Each structure stands twice: as structure tokens, then as C-alpha cells.
């Protein structure tokens, strides 16, 4: 648990953060958001004392952070930043191993941990462990940055716009991977962003700030439902209904779908999705084409489906871009798990 008590930061006569109190529960993701200059990054950096607070107190799991030496405090807190900041002269392995080394871990333990993390972030250890940062793509570098923050298995993670510098598609993928990781790891995370969609998608709670003051601290649902004031309402934007869909997952609103076996195409059941003997999605049948053999259109499942844990907002956007009224829903291996219709997606809003 991270507990900020009346924390303030002054530079001369200007106040960057003013009497901020905030409690981040263990295992939760708290997103700090606000316009630039609102004090969100300053708040984040006060937690690991890259910036020393001028006033107030910060407790981490009940312990006053000022009771530790700054570098000791930081070794127990994972830290990832927008520009990644990988050390260009060190390999991917060495970059990830920095904190474990600082903590004096034994070599075999470091080796095992780094390999585990590379697997976790989906980089082939054989190929990437000895690569230098300049050989990585933007997305890969961000993943390594996250792995580096996770290296010593800290309870607390501080993320300063870690997905800010990549293209939207990669960002979406990284966000989903991060949510998947968090489901397993249950870290206490403070996450700074200026992107309200990212905040709604990732957070358990959002702290929205303006001019160094906390405007509202609530779950995304509460905030969308009841913005505390005009500033919060404006900041969230007009499409609050649509944004809310980001909090609902396909698995909660989809309906079952049997799927047509490849060999049974001409049977023409109610379903239009075709699967193979393993249940993996292979394509769809066009109901308007009468000749069965011409109706089948084969596709890679990745191109036409959404996952169970995709949020409805993204599913809706997928539906629109594909021109489907009904989307197939698959698991990570491409096995058809159900389908999502437009009406169901629309009704998700009402479920809240």
C-alpha cells in the first residue's frame, strides 16, 4: 500500500504539488492523470524520492519512505519511463540484471530471473539476451524497460508514461500485455499518463490532477458516472458512454457459438463461423451466397476475431473496421469461444 499524506512540493515560490493525499491499495493500479504541469510526474517521482517532498509524508506498506536512504528505497521499487532509458552500452540481459546486481544476487539466480522475464515479455531469450538496445524495435525496448522494472520482483511499480513513445497499435498491444501481467503479478502500481483512454483502460482508480491539486480520486466507473466537477467532465471528454465500454469485457457479454466444422460446411446451421477439428477458427460463411462451396471465405483467425478479455470498446471499433455485425470471440490459441453481436455490444452500456 502506498499512502501519500498531505504531500507538497514547492520550487521557490511556485507550488508544483499542493497538499496531496492519496491512498493506493495493494495490488491496485492507480493512474495519475491531468494536463501537463498538473504535478502528476512530480507526485510519482516523490514516491521514490527522485524528487524530495517539501512537506507531508509518504508511507509504503506502512513504512515512512524518508526513513530509508534514497537508493535503498528505489531498489525496492520498479521504475519505468517513457523514454525507456535502456543503457545503450549494456546488453538486454545486462539491462534487466541491473537491480538484481545492485541487490547482490548470485549469478545463477540473476540468470534464471532474466530468462524468466524475457519469456514473460515475449522476447526469445536466445535471440535477445545478448542483443544491444539499438537492435530493438520501439515496442521491444518498452517491453525490456518493463522487464527491467520487474527484475527484482518489487511490490511497488512506478510507471511514467511507459507506453507513450510507441505507435498506437503497439501501444494497445503493450497495454493488453501489461493488464495480463498484472492479473498474474498483482503489483501495486502508480502509473502516470496524459491519455484518458489509457487511464480508463488500465486503472483500478484514477487520480485526476490540476495545478498541483487532486480534483477527483475514484474508480473509472465512478468518474465516468459522476465527474466531481466541470474540469473533470471536460477532461474526460464528451464520449463518456463510449469510454465506459472500455471497462466491460467481451467475455461478460458474448453469447455461445457452436461453429461449423470445416467438413460440414454445407450443412448450413445457424452459425456462420467455420472451425477445424481442434475448434480453431478458420473463416466464415457468407449467408447471402447460396452455393455452399462458394460461400466459405478462409481467414487467419487473428485477422477477424477478438479475445474474451478484449474490452467492448475495442471490440466495437474492430466490428466497425471489419464491417461485421457479429464478431467471433477466441482464446489465445484461436479456439472459437463465442460470438459478439452489435446489439450485445450496445447493451453493455446498460449493464453498468
Amino acid at each position, binding site marked *: 500500500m502506498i499512502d501519500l499524506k498531505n504531500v507538497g512540493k514547492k520550487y521557490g515560490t511556485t507550488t508544483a504539488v499542493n497538499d496531496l493525499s492519496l491512498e493506493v491499495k495493494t495490488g491496485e493500479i492507480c493512474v495519475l492523470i491531468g494536463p501537463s504541469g498538473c504535478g502528476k510526474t512530480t507526485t510519482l517521482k516523490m514516491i521514490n524520492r527522485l524528487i524530495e517532498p517539501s512537506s507531508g509524508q509518504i508511507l509504503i506498506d506502512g513504512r515512512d519512505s524518508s526513513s530509508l536512504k534514497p537508493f*535503498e528505497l528505489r*531498489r525496492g521499487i520498479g*521504475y519505468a*519511463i517513457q523514454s*525507456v532509458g535502456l543503457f*545503450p552500452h549494456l546488453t538486454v540481459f545486462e539491462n534487466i540484471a541491473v*537491480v538484481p546486481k545492485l541487490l547482490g544476487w548470485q549469478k545463477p539466480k540473476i540468470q534464471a530471473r532474466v530468462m524468466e522475464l524475457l519469456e514473460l515479455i515475449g522476447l526469445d531469450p536466445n535471440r535477445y539476451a545478448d542483443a544491444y538496445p539499438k537492435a530493438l524495435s520501439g515496442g521491444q525496448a518498452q517491453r525490456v524497460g518493463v522487464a527491467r522494472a520487474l527484475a527484482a520482483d518489487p511490490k511497488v511499480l512506478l510507471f511514467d508514461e511507459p507506453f507513450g513513445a510507441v505507435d498506437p497499435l503497439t501501444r494497445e498491444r503493450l497495454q493488453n500485455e501489461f493488464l495480463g501481467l498484472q492479473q498474474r503479478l498483482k503489483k501495486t502500481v502508480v502509473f502516470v499518463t496524459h491519455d484518458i483512454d489509457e487511464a480508463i483502460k488500465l486503472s483500478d482508480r484514477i487520480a485526476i490532477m490540476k495545478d498541483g491539486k487532486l480534483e477527483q480520486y475514484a474508480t473509472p466507473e465512478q468518474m465516468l458516472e459522476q465527474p466531481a466537477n466541470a474540469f473533470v467532465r471536460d477532461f474526460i471528454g464528451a464520449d463518456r458512454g463510449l469510454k465506459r465500454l472500455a471497462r466491460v469485457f467481451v467475455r461478460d457479454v458474448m453469447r455461445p457459438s457452436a461453429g461449423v466444422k470445416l467438413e460440414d460446411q454445407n450443412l448450413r446451421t445457424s452459425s456462420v463461423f467455420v472451425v477445424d477439428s481442434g475448434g480453431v477458427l478458420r473463416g466464415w460463411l457468407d449467408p447471402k451466397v447460396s452455393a455452399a462451396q462458394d460461400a466459405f471465405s478462409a481467414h487467419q483467425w487473428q485477422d477477424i476475431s477478438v479475445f474474451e478479455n478484449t474490452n467492448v470498446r475495442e471490440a466495437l471499433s474492430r466490428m466497425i473496421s471489419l464491417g461485421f455485425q457479429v464478431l467471433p470471440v477466441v482464446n489465445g490459441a484461436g479456439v472459437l469461444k463465442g460470438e459478439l453481436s452489435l446489439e450485445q455490444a450496445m447493451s453493455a452500456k446498460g449493464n453498468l
Partner: protein
Amino acid sequence: MTNPNRIALLGCLLAVSSLVWLPFLELKANRLVAGSGRRLLELGAAGWWLVGLLLLAGSSAFLIPRFRAPALAILGNLVFIVGIVLIGLDASKLLGSSTLARVSLAPAAWLMLVSSSFLIFAALNDLKNIWLKRLTSSVGILVFLVILLTGGLSSLSVIREYQTRLDTFWLEVGRHLGLAIWALFTSSLFGLPLGFWAARSKRFEGFILGFSGLLQTIPSLALLALLITPFSALVRAFPILESFGIRGIGFAPAITALTVYGLLPIARGVLNGLKAVPETALEAGRGMGMTSVQLFLSVEFPLALGLILNGIRTSAVQLVGLSTLSSLIGAGGLGVFIFGGLGSAANDLVLLGAIPVLVLAVLTDAGFRTLEQASIPKGLR
């Protein structure tokens, strides 16, 4: 037909025409008077060998690359070696038994040597095998050194100067190197921390750069003269210093003056190196819990090392050159020959000092460049 190798062809044409038209060696009645030139073919029929070799090399430039490279490698080295041998033989023939006369290289000899290096460069471009390359680029130099050391060139004026100053030449070379090395050491001793300090404090940065820039503008001669008084006073106050060789003139003030000039490139190298370390790497390091010492040793220093060494190299090469000034305050060095030669308008004596300084500077530069290359972290190459 493949295109002829233009470099090789150009070199040969240049050399042949200059050997025919321009003087090969210059004969002076004595060290000071103006001399008269002699063309290669006036000096004996052996000169035709050189012309023949050059023509052969020129025509081999038209061969296909597979045959051209070895042909140029062999002919280039042959031209060089035969040229050096002819210089040695013709010089001693010209000189006869005269003790006063001097023989030195004239334009055609220089152009012939340049042309042989053109041929060798052309061959090096085409050769693939690394050992053949090394052999091609070193065999001429080795033969040259053998001829030089066995006295084959002892009729040349510079070698004459060397022989009359045999007892002091190597002493002065040693002093010169000692001065440069010590000055580099003290320059680093002060320059490295100053650069570090400047990188840490914005206010100090301006002061350091301004101050050491100002020091560089002090005329060297004035600086040397200025240093006599404080050093003499120091030695009078602490006579023990004299047993360490510190005196008002000589080594100590010379090193001090050289340090003043060697400081800036080193401090600037450190400053530039540390400033070039990406801010994000520093923030990441700090955020991960590195102490400032750990951050410096494992992030800043390795990332800045290339530029730091670059600064040290600049300083080292400058110091090799500037150490000539030490002879103006009684510290010796190769400047003794250079300034002595300038004073009595004896160009050969000037060369006796200047050529070793040049060689030392080139070697220093090459050595530090190798070090620099080796020290750049793999991830940055």
C-alpha cells in the same frame, strides 16, 4: 576491358614526367648556401631502372583486378625500394669526399616516393587477404628502415646532421618524450577532475572553459619566462625540491607551461563526454537505485569514455608538438634542433628536430585512436 586504376596511373605519369623534367637531388656547396638540382638520368644509367619500373606499373594499371592487385603491390614496393636505393647511391656519388657539401631530396624524388605510395594504396584497395594487405603495406617501410639503419642513406643532409649530433639526438628524443608524457599526465591529473566538475556545475562550466581558453591564449614564450620567478622562489623556500629536479628553469616550468596548454582539450573532452550521456539513462539509473558513484562508474563513465579519450588524444598530439618549446627554457627536447636550426638558418638541422616530432605525433595519434576504438562499448559501435 576493365577500367584502368586511375590512382595508380596518375601516380606513375606524375612520377615519370617529374623524373624526366625535375631535379631528383639537390647539391649544396655547404649547409647554408642555395643549391643546384640534378635530374635522375643525369646521375647515371641506373635511373632507367626506376623509370622502367614506373612504366611497367603504369601499364599494369590496365590489368583485370585479379592480376592488377598483386602486380601493383609488387611494383609499388619495388619502385619505393629501388627509389630509396638510388637516392642513397646517387647522394653519395654526388657528395664525393666533400665534408662541407650537402645533398638533399629534390621534388622528383619526393614525387617518386608519393607515387609509390599511390601504387601501394591502389593495391591495398583491391587486395582482399588481410595478411597480403599487411605485407604490402609494411615491406617497403621495413626495407627502408634496414637501408636507413645500415647507413645506406648516410649521405643525405638530414642524416649528416644526425651523425654530428649522435650523442645528443637520442637524449633529446628521450627528453622530448619525457616532457610530453609527464605533461600529459599532469594535464590529465588536473583536466579530468576539472572537466568532471564543469559537467556537474553549470556555473563552473562557463568559468572553466573561459579560464582555460584564456590560458591557451597566453603566448608560450611569455608564459615560460613568467614561470621562472615563482619556481625560483619556490625552490629557494624549499631547497628539498631541488633534489626532485625542480628548478626555476628546465623541466619543472616546462611541464607547468605544457600542462596549461594540455588542460583544455582534456577538460573539454570530459565535459562533452559527460554531457553526451543521455539524460534518460541517468534518470533510469537513479530511479533503479544506483548511488551516484555506481551511476558514474557503470553508466556515465563507459558512455563518456570515447569522448574523454578523444580529448586526451587531442591533448597528447598537441603536447608532442608543444614540447619543442621546452628548449626555450632549458628543458631540452627536439626543439633544441628546431630552434637551433632556425637561428642559424640551417634547414637540415630544423628537419632533424621536426621529422621526429612529426613521427612521434603520428604514432601518438594512431596509438590513441586504436585505444579509442577498443574502448567504445560494443552497443555503441
